[in-house]
């Protein structure tokens, strides 16, 4: 009887599996019509068989199981505000979809006591042909409000979104920002017992985001309201949530007080994924390592300020990029360096140890070497970056010239001004986000 009143949500061993298809590589190089027809016929046969058995059709000829969530267990007390953090693809959104009954788990069970409203997107179901006024009622009904509830809050919603002049204009004539404001305004006036929110603060301009955050604060502090909150905006999570849950590759890595969980998320590296490159390090076995018989690159790492390999780092600390390599025959022309590129492949910069004055070059030892390059704090922007090693003998040939051997994620959090803090943005425009000096000049 007790848990009925004290616990809002119990998640027990919840897992979720998806089937994904791949096109196997050997078929991609097919050139003859005969082969293409043979392959298509095979695919058709498989699809037809799936259809007859009433199964899902998966494109491609190799089908793989993918566990978006695996053995998730946690409880949420009534009135608690819980943050869920994790990288993209960690399973956060899948978890929210299960909690809001949009999709069912493959195994496990969730028990919920209370009315759930989910807010996975701002302005869900807005119809472009309908006016702002009509869309408020439509969106309200979709989110589970009754007509009288919407009527009661109508003026508040309009005021919050500041769209009063455009109430009778079709939403298709709205600017993006206006539509988003209207969507959030409706959602913000929901009053369910349990609210599930996904990443909705990442919309609108800075001023509106501040307003949204304030509203979320007042929603969350209502003591009978249970809130589950997913965000990449760690400062928002820290300021709103009592507790947090860290997901990585569909597993729950940690739960507890918000501060340590966020800290672990930022410095997690080694605890995280199983995939080598996800750890914030890439290690090669000596025989598979790139290079030649004189030189082998054995590892590349991205380290957080405390020296741990990490896949996600804050911009408020230094980023160390480390190269491990074996030298069997020394060459005075050895240049070790890398290109840092963003997720779209645009290079931010290239750096070599030989950029320094010669007396400061690290010494090349026979055997194992470990060199570290420091990217200063407060320089990179938020977002994903890749390390492209560029190692060679000066002006002769490349030893290692590979792209994207390592990916890492930066979280923009080095703002020091009240007008620039990461409450308002995940990243700024531009590839880097340094803070420069400003002063007034007398002429």
């Amino acid at each position, binding site marked *: 009887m007790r848990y*009925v*009143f*004290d616990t809002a949500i119990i998640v027990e061993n919840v897992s979720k599996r*998806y089937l994904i298809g791949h096109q196997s590589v050997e078929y991609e190089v097919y050139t003859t019509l005969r082969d293409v027809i043979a392959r298509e016929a095979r695919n058709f046969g498989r699809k037809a068989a799936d*259809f007859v058995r009433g199964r*899902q*059709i998966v494109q491609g000829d190799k089908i793989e199981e993918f566990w978006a969530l695996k053995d998730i267990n946690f409880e949420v007390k*009534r*009135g608690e505000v819980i943050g869920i953090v994790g990288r993209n693809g960690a399973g956060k959104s899948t978890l929210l*979809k*299960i*909690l*809001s*009954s*949009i*999709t*069912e*788990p*493959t*195994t*496990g*069970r*969730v*028990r*919920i*006591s*209370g*009315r*759930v409203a*989910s807010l*996975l*997107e701002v302005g*869900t*179901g807005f*119809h472009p*042909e*309908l006016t702002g006024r*009509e869309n408020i*009622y*439509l969106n309200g*009904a*979709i*989110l*589970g409000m*009754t*007509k009288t509830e919407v009527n009661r809050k109508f003026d508040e919603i309009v005021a919050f979104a500041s769209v009063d002049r455009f109430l009778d204009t079709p939403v298709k004539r709205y600017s993006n920002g206006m539509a988003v404001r209207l969507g959030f305004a409706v959602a913000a006036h929901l009053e369910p*017992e349990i609210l599930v929110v996904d990443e909705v603060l990442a919309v609108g301009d800075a001023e509106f985001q501040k307003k949204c955050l304030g509203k979320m604060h007042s929603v969350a502090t209502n003591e*009978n309201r249970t809130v589950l909150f997913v965000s990449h905006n760690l400062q928002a999570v820290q300021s709103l949530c009592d507790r947090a849950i860290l997901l990585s590759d569909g597993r729950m890595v940690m739960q507890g007080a918000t501060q340590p969980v966020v800290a672990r998320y930022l410095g997690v590296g080694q605890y995280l994924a199983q995939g080598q490159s996800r750890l914030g390090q890439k290690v090669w076995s000596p025989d598979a390592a790139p290079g030649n018989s004189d030189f082998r690159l054995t590892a590349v790492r991205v380290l957080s300020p405390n020296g741990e390999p990490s896949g996600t780092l804050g911009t408020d600390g230094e980023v160390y990029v480390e190269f491990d390599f074996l030298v069997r025959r020394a060459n005075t022309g050895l240049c070790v360096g890398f290109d840092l590129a963003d997720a779209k492949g645009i290079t931010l910069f290239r750096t070599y140890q030989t950029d320094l004055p010669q007396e400061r070059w690290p010494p090349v030892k026979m055997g194992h070497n470990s060199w570290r390059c420091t990217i200063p704090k407060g320089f990179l922007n938020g977002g994903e970056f890749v390390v492209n090693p560029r190692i060679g003998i000066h002006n002769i040939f490349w030893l290692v010239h590979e792209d994207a051997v390592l990916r890492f994620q930066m979280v923009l959090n080095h703002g020091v001004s009240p007008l620039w803090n990461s409450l308002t943005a995940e990243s700024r425009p531009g590839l880097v986000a340094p803070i420069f000096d400003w002063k007034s000049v007398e002429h």
Partner: protein
Amino acid sequence: MIMRAWGHFTGLDRARMIQESTIEPGSTKRYYWLDLWRYRELFRVLAWRDVSVRYKQTVIGFGWALVRPFLTMLVLTVVFGKIAGLPSEGAAPYALMVIAGILPWTFFSTSLSDASNSLVSNTNLITKVYFPRLIIPTAAVVVSFVDFLISFGIALVLMAWYQFLPSWQMLFLPLFLAIAFLASLGPALWVTMLNVKYRDFRYVIPFLVQFGLYVSPVGFSSKVIHEQWRLLYSINPMVGVIDGFRWCMLGGQSQIYLPALWLSLAVTAFFLWFGIRRFKTMERNIADLI
């Protein structure tokens, strides 16, 4: 804390106030139909959305609901009544007999095709919010119903034109309309789910609808069908519905062939049962497939 605050409520009150639910693989909602009732507001709003969006940015707006059946009636009357010279029912004017077939047929066919596409065209809702999915295809039918009411004006005008007075049978019209609704809903529920999983089905329905116009007794009377095939012909549930409409609207001029009606009803009931059953089992995974 909360326990104490709620101390003065009876156990029954508490059970009502806190809604308990369990999410498990393979579990249909325990209160499936109650859940549907709870979301009636959303049904109303979605139906209203579909109706009010239907003729936005069109010049004649709801006029389309008049023009289309009227032109179809004209063509069918000329082709079947004049050129082919098929008989009408009793002494009823051919045009009137045709419109009594077109109205239920248009209602049926637009319901079927709108409802069949409804889930796929509401993907954004389905992947972002929970509600009983049954609401979407049924709300789509409301649009066809509104069109039907408007088109019914043509029948009234025609009756006035031919100075044809309907009799008491007219009172049974809503009954046959309800059958037409159920006859379209059953297959639509099934097809709309199949459409989510296998997009092939969006090509099947327009074809069926086009085909059905000639297979169902829309442009001609079902009396034209030879007696020995009549019962077999009535496997098409729209045969019973259209016959029923004619019986209602043409008063004493049209006789109803009861075995055919019962067969049509049975087929309708079967498809409805089958459609709802398939819908309920497939509904749980819909957000992953759509």
